[in-house]
């Protein structure tokens, strides 16, 4: 189903726990992004989706997740990267998003799931202002094993942008 590398060493010493958080990282368009692991509900493969009319392209539709109706967002399209086709390695990460104290479940389509890392708070650098994606949903940048990981604020990413845009599109 998903490709999680098995050489994962998690340093969960006492200090590490206090000053850091764990992030689940995934690959998207050649870049590695991370989300707070406490927000990850599950990881599943790509299934057929029911489209919702009059919504932006990146909102693929909704799926049935054990009885709940969960919307699926394609991050590639959301970040305006070039489209890729969905294959057997395509993964959907189901996240818990908090919006005005209400908890919602949203899924995002990514290329592949990478690893779980402990990132200390002081290792996180604030994002510089690049013109690519909106800064609001980037928490910070971290360097792990010579790679750059972009940590995302999913509340911002999946709430304000998608909702307001979808609302204007629908009217």
């Amino acid at each position, binding site marked *: 189903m998903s490709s999680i590398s098995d050489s994962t060493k998690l340093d969960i010493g006492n200090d590490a726990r206090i000053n850091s958080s764990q992030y689940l990282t995934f690959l998207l368009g050649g870049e590695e992004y991370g989300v707070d692991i406490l927000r990850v509900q599950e990881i599943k493969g790509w299934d*057929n989706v*029911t*489209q*919702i*009319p*009059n*919504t932006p392209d990146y909102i693929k*539709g*909704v*799926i*049935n997740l054990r*009885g*709940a*109706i*969960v*919307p699926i967002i394609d991050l590639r399209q959301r970040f305006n990267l070039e489209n890729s086709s969905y294959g057997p390695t395509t993964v959907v990460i189901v996240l818990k998003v908090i919006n005005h104290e209400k908890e*919602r*479940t*949203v899924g995002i389509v990514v290329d592949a799931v990478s690893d779980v890392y402990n990132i200390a708070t002081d290792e996180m650098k604030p994002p510089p202002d690049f013109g690519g994606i909106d800064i609001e949903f980037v928490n910070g940048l971290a360097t792990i094993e010579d790679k750059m990981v972009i940590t995302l604020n999913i509340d911002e990413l999946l709430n304000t942008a998608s*909702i307001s845009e*979808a*609302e204007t599109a*629908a*009217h």
Partner: protein
Amino acid sequence: MSIDITQFHQTFFEESFEGLDIMESGLLDLDIGAVDNDTINAIFRAAHSIKGGSATFGFTNIATFTHAMETLLDEIRDGHRSVSTEIVEVLLQSVDCLRDMITAQRDEEEPDGERITQLQQALDGLLGKENEDSEDDSLGGSQNKHDDGAPREWDISFTPHPHLLKTGNDPALLFRELESLGTLTTEVDLTGLPPLSEMDPEECYLSWKLKLSGSGVSEENIKEVFEWVEDDCDLVIKEIAPATATEEKPPREIPSNKKPIAKSVSKKSLTPESSSIRVSIDKVDTLINMVGELVITQSMMGNLDGDFEDFDHARLEQLREGLSLLERNIRELQESVMRIRMLPISFIFSRFPRMVHDLSQQLGKQINFEMSGEQTELDKTVMEKIGDPLVHLVRNSIDHGIETPEIRKQAGKPEAGSVNLNAYHKGGNIVIEISDDGAGLNKDRILSKALEKGLIEEGCQLSDEKIFELLFQPGFSTAETVSDISGRGVGMDVVRRNIRGLGGNIDIASKEGQGTTFTIRLPLTLAILDGQLVRIGNETYIIPLISIVESLLIAPENVNSIASTSEVYKLREEYIPIIRTHGLFGTTSDAEDLEDGLLVVIEGDGQKVGLFVDELLGQQQVVIKSLETNYQRVAGISGATILGDGTVALILDVEGIIGMSRKPGNGRNQHLEKAVA
């Protein structure tokens, strides 16, 4: 040890509201001529509980107010006072006021102080008023309630029942309180004391003879002291100095109770949005049994899971049987659970007698109000939302439908008009009928009013149903005068919208001079929908069956286009606009040509439109799941459901689609526009 008493507040409020309802219905049922003891006792008990409870929680203003009502009721109960319309009126208004006070206490707001004082005075006035009838009922006690400050002497014989001490009351404390009223002399009677060996220290064997003298002490004051123990003792209060009893009582000026006491006309919705529900035990038991059967079926199916070599035809059969058993179990379980949210409609019907009573008095009409089918059950949420529309319809009936007694007499009808409220189950729906034998709907007046408002064209012919439909247009009212009850034309379209919002509809039948009947049809529950599955392109949608008028194969010769942007279909005598749903939704459809698809004629908001679909799939009951839980509201879609194969299907919002299709350029006929361009 201090218990946090605030956790019991909620229960007190709920029970008090129930008690107030009992009082109200009891008061309305009171037959002035022949007072039914049981009714009076019920009313008294309710008031007594509210007083006791409010005193315990420290809500002194409620306690004091209720105390006055309780005293009055007690007199009626003992036969010292006879019931009059005036008393009933004051008590009814007091019930209202008390309800407001308790609501204010619950919501931590300030109640209307002025109204409270007014009613308090009225109650006190009634209590102080000498009731001529009761002078004959001399029970040896002076009924003199005059608090005129004259010195009075009382002989009190107080015999506590043996268990009095166990109730936590101490005679010594009672006597101390009596002392605050005047001078008290006590004489104890020790005759009841058994020898020491037989004595139980927790029992009271003593009785007392007391003499109390003080100025302005009334029997009331004394009774108040013994209030908490009145059921646990024998109390006889006799006034000495009988001279006062035979004095000529000066006629008292009673504060005129006929004066309309400031009543808040805006009747706030009486059913507070309570978050708890009362369920009868047998419903819960049924549920438990169902779940038990489910467990049995599941373990039976679990047994079938053996080695796969053994998996032969017999096993398959067993599996099939197990599955169908499972399906039955689950269906029964579902119905049982749904039934838990069902409450008898009497909960909202109960507020009507009072409302009719008040309205008929206010308008000077005589109304016979009958209700039937109060035990019919419906979903709690539906019930809360149908309350206000029903109130509006009943008010209309009384205000506009029923004529004044004089007109009725002239027409040869009985002077009292009748308004009937009837509820019953029919075919998976609940039907509520509001009928009256009043003046009926005047078709000509409706037509002329509609012409006036520009709703219809001159000289157009409308069937009776169409004419009655006009009533539902916003701003429509044929009332000559606008009262604060009705006539402003704001009501009927809101009523219909609310009913539609619950998935139901409303019909009118009327005969001029004979009366009108409104029939409301509602689905039994909100969460389940009978739907027609349709396929448009690659997607499956569900159209609520209740909105579907008919489905048909398109005959191309009946398709006409208007100004090359809209298409209409000629169906018998009507022209129905065609909506290409895929255009609205931005999806694709199999067929572009109308003749390759089907037309589903749906009705919403009084309009008919035809939806162009590719294929009709089955009909089934679906469970409505909200899109807004995890996503947001989508125009044209009222919800989603999960089909048997696990995929999600969207449920179409009929009125939403009609609204969307009206907006120009909303993808309705893109293909036409493309062709033209």
